[in-house]
Structure formats: C-alpha cells, structure tokens
C-alpha cells in the first residue's frame, strides 16, 4: 500500500496492465464503478449550476473524491452493513442504491427527500432502507455512533461491518479520539475511512495535524492504519476490502486514509482563492480520478472515446431529468414543521 502523495496520472495508470481482475473485480464491476463516478460528478456539476441559477440555496459536492468513494463503497454490502457517510459522499450513496432522483429531492429540500424531508441541508444522508444512518452537520459525532452500531451488531450476532467516513479536519476532534479508542479496545468491526483532501475549509493539513498522515494516528488505537492514493479507485478498493475482511474475521477496526483533493471550493458559499493557489488546484485537476479511471479503462480495452461519450451523455441526461423532476415535486408543507419532534402516537414506536 503506497502512502506517498498521489503520483501524476501518467505514471500510475498508463499502460494496459489489468489491475481489476486480480482484485476479483469483473469488467462489469469496473464499468459500473466508472459510471457511478461519472454520475456523481454529473450530479455535482448540475447541483452547482442549480445553485448558480438560484434554484437551490446551497450545495456541497464531492468533486475530486469520486474514486475514494466508489472504491470504498464497492466493498460494502447494502442492507447488511451500516454506513455513515459524510456530506461529500455522493459516490458512496449512489453505490449503495440511493437514486439520483432521491438525492435531487434533497438538493431542493423537497417533501419527499428520503434523507430528511427537506429539513436538513442537501447531502446530509440518512435512509433506514439502505442502512445509512442519518447524519448531522456537526462533524465527528458519527464516529461514536459507528461504535454503538457495531456493538449492537455484535450483541445481536448480525453479520456485517460498520463503515464511517469523514474529512481530515475531523481527526482533530475529541469524538474522533473517543470513537477510535472504543473501537480499538473492543475490536469492533468498524472501518474508519478518512477522505484527506488536505484542507478543513481553509485550514491546511499542516495546521491541523502534527503528523504527516492521518493513518499515523491508528497505532494509538491499536489498529492498523493505511494510507492510499485516494484518486486510485483500486488502491482504495483493495485497502477497504482488506479492512472489511479483517472486521468480518473479528480482527477489529481499521483506519484508512484516502489521500485526495477537493478540486472545487468547500461549498457553494466558499471562495477558495482566499486560501490556496490556482496552481495547486490545477495540479490536482491533472490528477482527476475520473480522468485516471478513463485512461485505465481505455488502456485495458474496456472503454473507447465513443463509449465514454455515450456514458457521459447518459448520466448527464439522467441528472438533468432528475433535476427537472425534483424541482417540480411538492415542497414540504409548512403545517408539518412541528411533526416528529417526538414519536407520534400510533407510529411504529421504539427504534423508529
């Protein structure tokens, strides 16, 4: 497992060596992964346009994180594993089966948004059907939740793992420490997945961390820590699969750091020119994980320009259609603003 900074695309994926078959991934798998990366990107591009058009008040996107998200989520089993993705993780929830229309409902804060019915900002995931636990905005709180879910699975003898993701900024927080500590003590089947994009909004990693890698912190919790090139979907897949296997085998948690870059501002409210150079951003755009995946797929003969163009047109159409559809869906009814502060009489009670 490499733990250095990402290499330029040319070096790491050029050529035509088949990397996916040895990992047990079929051609269909990798094409689906690629398509999901494209879909995530197309969605986020569309969301940014909707924001610019003034159709939605806010958005946050995963631009640049797609390989990390799709590579990791490919290792999860929807319906078996509990998943606690963070606000950039559109690639994760797409892989788990949340539909583009569903996500678009959240973007508009519509009544039918399965995540929160328009009560939370977009990309604040949550969906019992997919075992995606509802996420808040305060960061790091979800790490202890992941431990509690893992405890319940252990006690209830339910198979599976808990996968929880977060940014590099989160590694500074108390709840990060308390969560990893508990998981380490009890060897819980939790995969802690950090998408290190080197910034917490504007604060560079060097001002957040005294150590070079987030994974350097794993040893303090008696668990393995691995750093991977987060723009390389196969490195991420391999590390996550190994972590899932360890967890399922009862060997406990793993901390994975996927080193990547957010190639756009923090959110639609942010102006990243204040805190980082255009050169730096450009340099990382050259390492765009989607381009890298395309180069790979072409190298191994699974993709050509025409097919690529078709796929891109497809996802673009899907996203446009979903946006138009979602925009036309009913807004939340103001009369519902007071509902579900507490469970309502006749609801299905405890646990819901």
């Amino acid at each position: 497992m490499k733990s250095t900074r990402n290499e330029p695309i040319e070096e790491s994926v050029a050529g035509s060596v088949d990397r996916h078959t040895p990992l047990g991934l079929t051609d269909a798998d990798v094409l689906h992964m690629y398509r999901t990366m494209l879909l995530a990107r197309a969605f986020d591009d569309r969301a940014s346009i909707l924001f610019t058009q003034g159709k939605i008040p806010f958005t946050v996107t995963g631009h640049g994180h797609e390989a990390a998200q799709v590579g990791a989520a490919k290792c999860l089993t929807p319906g078996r594993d509990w998943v606690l993705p963070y606000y950039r993780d559109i690639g994760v929830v797409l892989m788990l089966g949340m539909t583009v229309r569903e996500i678009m409902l959240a973007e508009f804060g519509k009544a039918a948004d399965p995540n929160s019915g328009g009560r939370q900002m977009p990309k604040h995931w949550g969906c019992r059907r997919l075992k995606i636990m509802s996420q808040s905005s305060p960061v790091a709180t979800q790490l202890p939740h992941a431990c509690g879910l893992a405890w319940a699975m252990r006690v209830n003898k339910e198979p599976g793992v808990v996968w929880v993701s977060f940014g590099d900024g989160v590694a500074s927080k108390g709840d990060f420490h308390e969560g990893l500590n508990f998981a380490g003590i009890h060897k819980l089947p939790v995969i802690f997945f950090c998408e290190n994009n080197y910034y917490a909004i504007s604060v560079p990693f060097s001002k957040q961390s005294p150590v070079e890698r987030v994974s350097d912190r794993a040893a303090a919790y008696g668990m393995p820590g691995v750093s991977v090139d987060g723009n390389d979907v196969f490195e991420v897949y391999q590390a996550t699969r190994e972590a899932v296997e360890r967890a399922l085998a009862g060997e406990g948690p793993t901390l994975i750091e996927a080193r990547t870059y957010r190639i756009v501002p923090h959110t639609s409210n942010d102006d990243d020119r204040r805190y980082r150079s255009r050169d730096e951003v450009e340099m990382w755009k050259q390492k765009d994980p989607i381009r890298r995946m395309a180069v790979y797929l072409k190298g191994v003969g699974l993709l050509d320009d025409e097919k690529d163009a078709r796929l891109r047109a497809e996802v673009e159409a899907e996203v446009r259609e979903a946006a138009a559809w979602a925009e036309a869906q009913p807004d939340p009814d103001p009369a519902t603003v007071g509902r579900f502060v507490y469970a309502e009489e006749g609801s299905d009670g405890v646990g819901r």
Partner: protein
Amino acid sequence: MAVKNILESVRATLFEEMRRDPRVMILGEDVGRHGGVFNATQGLLDEFGEDRVVDTPLAESSIVGIAIGAAVGGLLPIAEIQFADFIHPAVDQIINEAAKLRYRSNNDFGCPIVIRVPYGGGITGGLYHSQSVEALFFSTPGLKIVAPTTPADVKGLLRAAIADPDPVIFLEHKASYRTIKGEYPEGDYIIPIGGADIKRAGTDVTVVSYGMTMHYAWEAADALAQEEGIEVELIDLRTLLPLDRETIIESVKKTGKLLIAHEDNLTGGVGAEVAATVAEHALMYLDAPIRRIAAPDIPATPYHPALERAMLPSKQQIKEAIRELARY
C-alpha cells in the same frame, strides 16, 4: 409491598427491565465490576454479562454517542453519567444528535436511549459533584427530562423512560438516594412521562417543585396544614420536559397563589417557565405575585458545609414563602 429507598428502586427496576427485555443494556464509567459509584448497577454485570453491562473508558461524549448508535442498531441503551457535573462533554451528542435524530430524519430514525444522571447538592460534593443540570437541557425540544422523587415514581418513570421511543434524561437526586424511602410497587407499574403529580391537594397556595426540594416543600406543606391550617396544593413536576402546563394552570386557577421551588439556580431555571406559563395563561386568577425559591445565581454548591447550607433552598424558606403567600 416492599419498602425501598431511591437507590434500591433504581437498581431493582434495572434488574427487572433487563430481565424482561434482552435489548436493554447499560454503559458508563464503573457500572460493571464496581457496580457504579453509587451502587446503582451492582450485580448487573454478574447476571447479564459484558455484552449488556459495559464499563466504558472515561469519556462522556462517546458514552452517549455509543448509546445513540446502539439504539439505532436495535438495542435499548441506558447510559450512566457518573455525576451530572460531568455531562457537559456529552452535550453535543445529547442536544445535537440524540434530541434531533428523529426530527432531522423526518421520523426515519428514532433514538430510544435513557441517560441516568445522579444530580444535586447536599452531599458535600463541592462545585463539581453537586450540580443541577436540568436548565441546560430544558430548552431542547426532542429530549424528555424526568426527575422522580419517590421510589414508586422512580420505578414507574424509569420503566416509561426505557420504553420511550425518544431520548430521556433521567435525573436521580443524590441526596435522596438513601434518605427517601417508600413503597416499591411490584409488577408492571408504569407512569406515563409528561404528567405532573399532585402530591398533596389543597386550596390556598399552589407549590410547584421537583427533586429534593419537593420533599422539603412536602414537609413544609404538611407542617403548615397542621400548625396553621394553610392548605397547600403541592405539584411534583416529576417530568420537567415536556412540561405539564395544564396541571399547573388548573391548580393556580383554584388557589390564586403560586410558589415555585427548586434547587437549580434562579435565572433560566425550570421555575421561570412555570411562572411564564401562569403569567400567560392564568394571570387573571393570580391574587399575589408569583414567588420563586431557588439557589442563588452562583456557579454551583461550594464544598464547605457552611457555604453549601447557605446556598441550598431549605424547608424553612419554603414555609415562610408559603405563609406569606397565604396571607397576601
């Protein structure tokens, strides 16, 4: 019926509930091998094992956070915070997570956890082993706060808290643990959360209280009835949130006089909301200004007994206030 003190009632109810429902689990500092610094969980580890009785690291934020996750995973966790004074690191998990989980998920997720919190002064605990923390959580919709005062109420409300689909803070007054004794109801006894209890009916003055102060008010009321013929209607809030406004309003409509007494400090306390409720909904029934008795606005109970006594509301203070109101 067996007679138990508050502590014994907590423990007995925990045993009953854990036997009844295998989903119920306990977690917190020293709750296992030690049985809890107040002995509330003694014996549970032996009977229910390490899966269901968890000695956690010293880390309150994660104690509540793990409970939340375990609840979503299908268990019914009871988290113990060793002293109320140490609940503050868990405020984010309680207010931003537990209390908002149902609302933010539009009812897709609930958070059936109970947080047991020994609280209150009068045990020479000093600034950090005596605090009342109810005001800290009282402005948090989505939470329920329960503060039972008798062994029977403890059983009935602890069972209701465990059965509740939403997060409940269960306040146990430390000074009452061994001093307050009473009947412990057998079997399926349960008290719905949300209802105040009229501990004593009366016509002259309404006294609203909870916690140890309720017991002082009760003694004061009994004494005044006997000695001076003043008949107090004593309302034990029992549930602080959601507040049972109706019972308070109805009583004040009858008596026209209101005294609120609690151990938490005055400003921003539960008493303020009780007073405001009456000033909004029964103002024209009031025959006298509303009175509040509370701890003074100081950070917490100081350690030296002389200072502690100077800080805590007393039976004598309550008695005088009732008398003044009755004569008003």
